[in-house]
């Protein structure tokens, strides 16, 4: 059963690497989704092991929050792109517009 946890840890780490080394804000968002999925996998694996369905409920809420986060995040990205015509996080470093 702990193989699922190892796999989840590996996927999470790949997501962290993506967030830290990529420059495009779009790919950084995808990496965040990767990390969320790794945690979901971990939740479901523990749920299976303990025979309790609370983990499934938590995954349900994580999915709902992820959907909200992606909608708002991508809207911010579109707004930044209109203003600065770049999606590169190294070029967007001022709070002022």
């Amino acid at each position: 059963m702990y193989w699922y946890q190892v796999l989840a840890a590996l996927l999470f780490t790949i997501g962290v690497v993506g967030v830290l080394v990529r420059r495009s804000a779009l790919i950084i968002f995808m990496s965040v989704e990767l990390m969320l999925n790794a945690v979901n996998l971990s939740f479901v694996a523990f749920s299976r092991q303990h025979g309790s369905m609370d983990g499934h409920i938590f995954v349900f809420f994580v999915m709902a929050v992820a959907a909200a986060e992606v909608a708002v995040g991508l809207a911010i990205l579109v707004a930044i792109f209109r203003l600065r015509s770049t999606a590169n996080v190294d070029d967007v470093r001022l709070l002022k517009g």
Partner: protein
Amino acid sequence: MTLVEPFLFAMFGGTAIGCALGVVFHRNPVHCALLLVGVLLSVSGLFVLLHAPFIAALQVIVYAGAIMVLFLFVVMLLNVKGESSILTPGAAKGFGILFALLGFVELLWTVLSPAAESSGIPEAVLPADFGSPAAIGRILYTVWLFPFEITSILLLVAVVGAVVLAKRKFA
């Protein structure tokens, strides 16, 4: 626990890791998005293996369906030019990978150490309807009713926020 399960686990897990590496290191954002769909579908296969059919269906519909369509729309909308270098330059890259690997070792230590919670407990015997929509609905609408309602407000706020932010002239 059947004999096929380790085989299926290796297949889905391998696909997930391969596609995840592709997401992080591929140059073209459209390819990244499609590889991310690959990751999401393999994780959904793993959910089926873990007796969570409802969550697996939700994963395919919500993530691979809705969220990825949103991603692809934004990729098309932004028309991001081919980046000269996709990774952050210089020392930041090395430090990023180093700290990610440190985190990985830490996670592995948590999971595999003898004191870990996952090592001692044997797998629970599952009821027949474990993970079915009916069983999940039964606890979602009784024990977890209040968080469920809060989630609906969160989604409403997100919709309003997204519309306001993405409007052509915002001020």
